[in-house]
């Protein structure tokens, strides 16, 4: 659990961090020399702990299966006791109003009759008053049964035999979540069939299935609870709508955006993520490549890539068509007429447009590839870092603790470093999508963005390298290393510095790089750095 909480801290940066970051929020760290950076971070490591603890204010709650069931049960009890109705009726009412207890109360006390009619909980006297031991005909199989042994009816009184009820309910449960709104089988009757009656009549497997639908409905109909989208995770996340960041980390450690259910993507917004994912999935980029580098065979229309040689092209068998690469005319006609196609024709202009279009398509493809490669590389690097983190926690930590004679609790800084890397890779990945969509004509913004991104990336690479490579020296050592404390200090520093770089980058992007608009932003920030560091 501890490590999961930590991930949460990293994400929730905007909830409680203002007091910590105020002084240096606009500082591009690069303008300090490196000694100063380390100084500034290491001076008071307690500060960092303080900061992490402040960041634990969460805007969301993870609900496990038992939590969900307990909450649902509480809501049902509340409604049942306030309205003095049965549990079954309370469930029907809650479902109708998307499990909002307050809405149920409001609607009910505003116009009870209307609500009863809408959900099928009428209090009319039953259609059929059956006296005991009378024979009654079932409305489905038309057989006669003695009452009450063989016959059941909902509040409306329409009589059906137990076997037919069972068949009716099981069919509905098998058909899906619609069984939660089951009505009396009589076509003209809208009396609701509640959970109590269903549990009384059907086999356990159907009861269970019905209950699962009920739990699902509790989550899926609710506005502020969603399932965690990770495969095989059964948790749900309740979100305080209106709070800052919508990034959420489930207890299964999967991070996702509460708004769009995609993987967590701060600082980039949901629309951009959707567009980027669509772009990555779409065949459009392949098409673009084919357009830029190939021409269709004039006969069979298969795309052909010309990789070298002369203009005399021969399409693959079975087509085998021979043509000129330049004018796409048949090679034989071509040769017979002039031997070449160098004579200028009005078509030439059209062809020029064509080549210009190809060039543009090629350029846009190269541009996309640049960003996509970096996006994807950071993605896989992040996955690797996650695996490394787990390996470190499961295997290396014990070993290192033995070799270096350090209690495991004092090695937390290594986990922190890895967690920072995992988070930074994620942010960095999305900044490449951001970079792709940053308008090309916004030159100042672009340079500012690339500057911040570059700084962050450099910091991250240093950190990643340090924990990946240097740690090995201490793992392979035969006896406690003298400089292990130096390593600790260095790694802690790098972690802090990298976090700062990324905080700046995230803030700048969330601000839509607005800082470049203020004149002399650069000089201002550099003077702030001096203040900031001296204050520490």
């Amino acid at each position, binding site marked *: 659990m501890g490590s999961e909480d930590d991930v949460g801290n990293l994400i929730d940066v905007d909830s409680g961090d203002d007091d910590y970051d105020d002084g240096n929020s606009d500082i591009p760290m690069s303008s300090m020399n490196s000694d100063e950076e380390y100084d500034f971070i290491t001076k008071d490591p307690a500060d960092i702990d303080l900061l992490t603890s402040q960041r634990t204010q969460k805007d969301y709650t993870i609900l496990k299966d038992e939590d969900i069931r307990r909450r649902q049960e509480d809501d049902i009890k509340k409604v049942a006791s306030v309205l003095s109705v049965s549990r079954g009726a309370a469930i029907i009412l809650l479902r109708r109003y998307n499990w909002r207890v307050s809405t149920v109360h409001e609607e009910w006390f505003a116009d009870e009759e209307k609500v009863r009619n809408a959900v099928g909980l009428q209090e009319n006297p039953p259609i059929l008053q059956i006296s005991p031991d009378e024979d009654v005909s079932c409305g*489905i*199989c038309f057989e006669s049964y003695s009452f009450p042994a063989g016959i059941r009816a909902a509040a409306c009184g329409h009589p*059906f035999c137990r076997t*037919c009820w069972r068949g009716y309910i099981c069919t509905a449960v098998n058909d899906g979540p619609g069984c939660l709104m089951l009505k009396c*089988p009589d076509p003209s009757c809208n009396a609701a069939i509640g959970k109590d009656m269903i549990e009384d009549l059907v086999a356990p497997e159907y009861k269970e299935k019905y209950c699962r639908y009920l739990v699902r409905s509790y989550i899926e109909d609710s506005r502020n609870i969603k399932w965690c989208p990770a495969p095989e995770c059964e948790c749900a996340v309740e979100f305080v709508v209106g709070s800052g960041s919508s990034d959420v980390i489930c207890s299964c450690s999967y991070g996702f955006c509460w708004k769009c259910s995609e993987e967590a993507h701060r600082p980039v917004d949901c629309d951009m993520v959707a567009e980027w994912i669509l772009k990555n999935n779409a065949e459009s980029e392949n098409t673009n490549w084919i357009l830029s580098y190939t021409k269709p065979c004039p006969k069979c229309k298969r795309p052909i890539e010309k990789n070298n040689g002369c203009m005399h092209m021969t399409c693959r068998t079975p087509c085998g068509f021979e043509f000129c690469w330049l004018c796409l005319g048949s090679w034989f006609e071509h040769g017979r007429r002039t031997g070449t196609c160098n004579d200028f024709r009005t078509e030439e202009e059209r062809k020029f447009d064509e080549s210009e279009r190809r060039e543009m398509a090629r350029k846009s493809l190269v541009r996309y590839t640049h960003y996509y490669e970096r996006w994807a590389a950071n993605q896989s690097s992040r996955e690797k870092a996650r695996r490394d983190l787990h390996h470190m926690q499961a295997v290396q930590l014990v070993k290192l603790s033995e070799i270096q004679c350090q209690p495991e609790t004092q090695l937390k800084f290594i986990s922190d470093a890895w967690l920072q890397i995992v988070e930074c890779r994620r942010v960095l990945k999305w900044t490449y999508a951001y970079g792709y969509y940053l308008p090309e004509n916004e030159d100042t913004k672009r340079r500012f963005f690339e500057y911040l991104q570059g700084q962050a990336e450099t910091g991250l690479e240093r950190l990643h390298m340090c924990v990946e490579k240097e740690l090995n020296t201490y793992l392979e050592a035969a006896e406690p290393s003298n400089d292990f404390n130096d390593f600790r200090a260095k790694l802690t520093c790098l972690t802090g510095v990298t976090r700062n770089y990324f905080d700046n980058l995230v803030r700048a992007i969330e601000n839509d790089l607005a800082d470049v608009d203020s004149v002399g932003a650069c000089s201002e920030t550099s003077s702030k750095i001096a203040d900031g560091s001296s204050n520490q």
Partner: protein
Amino acid sequence: MQASRARLFKEYKEVQREKSADPDIQLVCDDSNIFKWTALIKGPSETPFEGGVFQLAFSVPEQYPLQPPQVRFLTKIFHPNVHFKTGEICLDILKNAWSPAWTLQSVCRAIIALMAHPEPDSPLNCDSGNLLRSGDIRGYQSMARMYTRLAAMPKKG
């Protein structure tokens, strides 16, 4: 299987007893298979189907009455909710609004009601639906009447 057979047998006996209960509907069970039925229904009055007699084919599933019977027109009919070629019928009670308390007899009544009150917004026969939706009632009625005369009335002479 047993339940559906028993229930169909009940319906069969009911039909035999009440033969004249509804003069517009004549339900007949297949001689050798209780899961196959045909019905002859009269086109409702004051509709373009008036005067016609339409044949329906019922195919009853083993899960009946928990599952609805499959019904189609054997007689050609020009109606927005009936497929012009296959005779398939688009009617909610034959799909998701089915209730096991319906019977073959009540399905026939529902189909007669559908003939009188077409639902042009969910058409199986788009030509017919479009005529109604564009407000060309005369066009719809004369087409429907023509097909009634061609397919659903005894040939003269």
